[in-house]
């Protein structure tokens, strides 16, 4: 029916949709792509004081960053944090979804309890977990009451150890223990979201399929591995994309919860960018960090866009 309506439209009306999206196209062209280009340009200049200085210096801001202890630490932290955060969130989210999917009583209540942290802003989460995991006032008091020796309590986000701590130039490579505290906070916040996504997926798998497998003698584990997991595959894909872009751009949670941390064990590019730009007035350096972050995110988003465009076309 819509098709017949379309074909009756006069030719000039084809212009109207274009006109309708033109304002937002122009706004996006200027305020998104224009400013990206401007940032890219700034990152190649010598504007590293309050006084604007647009002398072209090539890639020297980038060269500085890659030799910088702090930025090297940031890159290590980003990689470690992204992996830990995604694996833990997806694993925990799937577990919660399976549990809630048992058609238990008060299912809606549990669902809401698990999703609720998502409604909070990262700043709130950061402040709350800063106190919960504070080594002198937080959860350590409970551990102490349970009998843990004072010297063996976890140091949470103030720990400066990096495991296994392989020397990699100036910095040590490995998992900064302090980041685990941050991962706990983010997983607490985001695993409800992963659960909701998986729950939707689980409800989409027809019971007949599972029953058929069981009739064929498959164990519950085999049903899970061979029937359920493959059916959830597209959801896992979308989750990975969404969670990765959250973790690459993370700023507010870390800023509120730990700050850069001793020896930059919890620092991330976003925090460095903010501090060097607006506190140190190193505008060009900040712009260079922004461009590197954009590159990292686009490495992830562009393949995703490509594949989803292909799907849309076919």
């Amino acid at each position, binding site marked *: 029916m819509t098709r017949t309506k379309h074909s009756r439209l006069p030719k000039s009306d084809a212009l109207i949709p274009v006109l309708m999206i033109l304002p937002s196209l122009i706004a996006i062209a200027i305020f998104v792509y224009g400013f990206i280009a401007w940032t890219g340009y700034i990152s190649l200049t010598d504007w*590293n*004081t*309050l*006084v*604007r200085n647009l002398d072209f210096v090539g890639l020297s801001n980038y060269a500085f960053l890659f030799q910088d*202890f*702090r930025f090297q630490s940031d890159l290590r932290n980003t990689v470690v944090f992204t992996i830990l955060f995604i694996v833990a969130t997806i694993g925990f989210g799937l577990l919660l979804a399976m549990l809630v999917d048992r058609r238990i009583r008060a299912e809606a209540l549990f669902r809401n309890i698990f*999703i609720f942290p*998502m*409604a*909070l*802003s*990262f*700043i709130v989460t950061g402040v709350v977990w*800063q106190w919960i995991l*504070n*080594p*002198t006032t937080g959860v350590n008091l409970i551990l102490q009451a349970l009998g843990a020796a004072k010297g063996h309590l976890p*140091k949470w*986000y*103030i720990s*400066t150890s990096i495991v296994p701590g392989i020397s990699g130039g100036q910095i040590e490579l490995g998992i900064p223990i302090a980041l685990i505290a941050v991962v706990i906070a983010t997983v607490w916040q985001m695993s409800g*979201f992963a659960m*909701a*996504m998986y*729950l*939707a997926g689980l*409800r*989409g798998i*027809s019971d007949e399929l599972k029953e058929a497998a069981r009739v064929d003698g498959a164990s519950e584990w085999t049903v899970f591995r061979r029937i359920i997991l493959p059916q959830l595959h597209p959801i896992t894909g979308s989750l990975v994309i969404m969670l990765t872009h959250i973790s690459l751009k993370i700023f*507010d949670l870390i800023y509120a919860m*730990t*700050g*850069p*941390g*001793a*020896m*930059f064990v919890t620092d991330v590019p976003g925090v460095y960018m*903010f*501090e*060097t730009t*607006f*506190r*140190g*007035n*190193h505008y060009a350096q900040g712009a260079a960090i922004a461009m590197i972050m954009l590159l990292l995110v686009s490495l992830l988003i562009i393949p995703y866009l490509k594949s989803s465009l292909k799907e849309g076309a076919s």
Partner: protein
Amino acid sequence: MNKRMMLLAVFLVLSLLTAACGSSGTNDKTALENQPQTNSDSNSKDSADSSDADTAKKSVEIFSWWTGAGEEAGLLGLIDLFNQKHPDIEVINAAVAGGAGTNAKAVLASRMQGGDPPGTFQVHGGAELNTGWVAAGKMESLNALYESEGWMDKFPKDLIDMVSHDGTIYSVPVNIHRGNVLFYNKKIFDDNHLTPPTTFEEFFKAADALQAQGIIPLALGDKEPWTATMVFEDALLGVLGPEDYKQLFTGEIAFDDAKVKDALEKTKRMFSYINEDHAARNWQDAAQLVANGQAAMNIMGDWAKGYFTTDLKLQPNVDFGWIATPDTGGSFMVITDTFGLPKGVKDANSVDEWLKVLGSVEGQDIFNPLKGSIPARVDADSSKYDVYGQSTIADFKQSSLTPSLAHGSAAAEGFLTQVNQVMTIFVTKGDVDQAAKSLRDAQVSSGIVK
């Protein structure tokens, strides 16, 4: 059934997603920008009105980071005084929260760069003013104001130099804080029969004795790294003395000099006496350790005194004592809050009136007792100050004044952020040679060495 559930779940996810995005986005923005934004709106509206009709209300917007207990009271006291003198001028208090002005400076930078300067703003005298806004050509000369108010001999010459560039004065100092103060818990020192240390030697001896008693000798809260930088700058001043200390920032002494390395060694040794959870604490949390007797000493600017007396209700000279940091007895690490006149302010006359109140004896004696600082003027009424204030006013007149690095008076912000980064690593790693090398690199790259 399945389909309905799935739709429901998807809807739920989407609505939560937008809610979360919306809240995290707008919350941060409002927290940081809301106040100055609305203020600037009303400011520009007012000034637009006043250009249309002279009868419209005049206004002055005051930008600061004075939101803490004592400092906010001081600012409100000043505004009250101003309102009595100029009931026709509306005062807009555009304060942005955050210790040491770190958030406020970010907001200020974007407003100044965007051509929307506040009427007047808080800026530390010294490099923060001179290599920042003055070098950027964004400040008006205040020489005429100083002449007409007769201020040239009312402020110490060293201080006027700190707010001047090539003979032109750019701001009015309202207060003085001392940066090289060691606060100590009087009871702990008395119980252990210790005298407050005046030299590094005595400091380390006392620290060893305290550690043996199971007391944390030195409290540090370096969640924000400038507190560690303060310990370092005081060690620098102690080792180098005031003249050499100042030459570090003119490039005459290199930051990898043997004396700087000596100061780094002393700093490193001091850091070996700190509380384990220093990275989780801010300066107030560290001062609190001294207040409640868990730690013995704390190196902090004398705003900590305001925190002790106003917030924690402690008695100076009874509950806590103070002394200059090791080997800096004859020096005074100056942190001065000043206000200037940016270019492009629509109602500059009202700002002038505000600066006159700020620089007056009356204004300084209202503000400083509340804030816990001492007046910048030499002729203020010292009887209005408590025992700490009076002893500091006396010290201020006799000591050689040195600009604080940690608070942006000694060198440009760009250098300071790099020093803060070096200290963040140094507190944990304690690598003297690496720290000296990084400091030297920063000294060169930020243009201190020509």
